[in-house]
């Protein structure tokens, strides 16, 4: 690991000042991805701005039909929050299938979204629930936030401060784990929202995406059997040692059916 200047600001304003004063600074959240890539020499930031000391970035609030979660809230905290369990149980349960207990005790919502791993779980949740990402500069709709492979709408030095998830009438997330890494081989998040049925898929391609074919079928008839005749094309899906594109395409359908079943 290359050396760096370490900062531990106590406020969002101080953190923004620290990052803009740095040559090539990075925010440090739970470190579950960033420290690993720094160990491998794949990242060598000049400065680390640790967000761990900023109380404003933590916590969960339910208000106005939405659950708003601070960027530094850990996966374990989202999972065990009675507020999240009450308002959006699918989100609480998604947080419980990320990595292992130790990863969930450290890894954060903001870190996971900023990193935007193609097989991460939260990207599917923000797309299916139509969440809004708040940064220190602006608000970004989930559909605009996820841009590409490990790529988001965040600009250099822009910090996620919180994420607001509108409460769906029904929702469920089903994940087929890659058993060694525990990331999603395929994960499907299905939600009935005021804007209609939204379905998001993670793990299958270069980044999480909405699945229009599934949304259309479920929009007409929100039942598992509505998906019987749907075929997911394998074009553009990932193919690797863990699963072929065809296998992933079939898993998208199977996980979507299970998610609709779980919506009850």
């Amino acid at each position, binding site marked *: 690991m290359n*050396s760096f200047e370490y900062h*531990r600001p106590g406020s969002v304003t101080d953190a923004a000042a620290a990052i803009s004063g740095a040559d090539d600074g990075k925010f440090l959240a739970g*470190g579950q991805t960033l420290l*690993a890539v720094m*160990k491998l020499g794949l990242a060598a930031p000049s400065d680390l701005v*640790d967000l*761990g000391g900023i109380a404003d970035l933590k916590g969960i609030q339910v208000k106005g039909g939405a659950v708003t979660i601070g960027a530094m809230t850990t996966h374990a905290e989202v999972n065990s929050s009675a507020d999240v369990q009450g308002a959006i149980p699918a989100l609480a349960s998604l947080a419980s299938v990320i990595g292992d*207990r*130790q990863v969930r*005790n450290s890894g954060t919502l903001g870190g996971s979204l900023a990193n935007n791993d193609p097989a991460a779980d939260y990207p599917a949740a923000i797309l299916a629930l139509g969440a809004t990402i708040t940064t220190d500069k602006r608000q970004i709709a989930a559909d605009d936030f996820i841009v590409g492979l490990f790529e988001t709408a965040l600009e250099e030095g822009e910090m996620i401060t919180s994420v607001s998830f509108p409460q769906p009438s029904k929702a469920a997330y089903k994940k087929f784990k890659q058993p060694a890494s525990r990331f999603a081989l395929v994960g499907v998040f299905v939600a009935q929202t005021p804007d209609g049925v939204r379905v998001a898929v993670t793990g299958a391609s270069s980044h999480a995406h909405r699945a229009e074919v599934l949304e259309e079928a479920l929009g007409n008839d929100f039942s598992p059997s509505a998906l019987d005749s749907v075929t997911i094309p394998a074009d553009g899906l990932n193919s690797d040692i863990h699963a072929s594109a065809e296998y992933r395409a079939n898993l998208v359908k199977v996980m979507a059916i299970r998610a609709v079943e779980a919506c009850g």
Partner: protein
Amino acid sequence: MPTISMTVNGNAVSADVDVRTLLVHFIRDNIGLTGTHVGCDTSQCGACVVHVGGKSVKSCTMLAVQAEGADVATIEGLASGDEMHPMQAAFKEHHGLQCGFCTPGMVMSAIDLVNNNPGADEATIREQLDGNICRCTGYHNIVKAIQDGASRMGG
């Protein structure tokens, strides 16, 4: 070099270290507590699990500076004098270890597991132990030990 201070097993400790120092190396090399192991160095195996602020974390994937001012617990802090912690006693009684390399991390994870899932059944224990790898035992006796450890802990 920053001076890093924290509480480890109830004792205030402090050392001047390179800012890149991982918590596991701070504990092993600076504090001299070598019960916490490094198996993989890539957050896979759980040999390095300690508690920070009462929660289990992989100390190979945390900088020592991130634990500045924190309350840290390692395997060495569990026993009271000659009396083992109930989870340690259960691992001993049920042969929940062979070479012992994974054991400190297993025990630290097991205690966090029981604190968060009092009365956990076998399936829950197996599932919640997925951050800890053991190359020797086949897990069977580890799971038995944790079930018994949980009831000894009053869970």
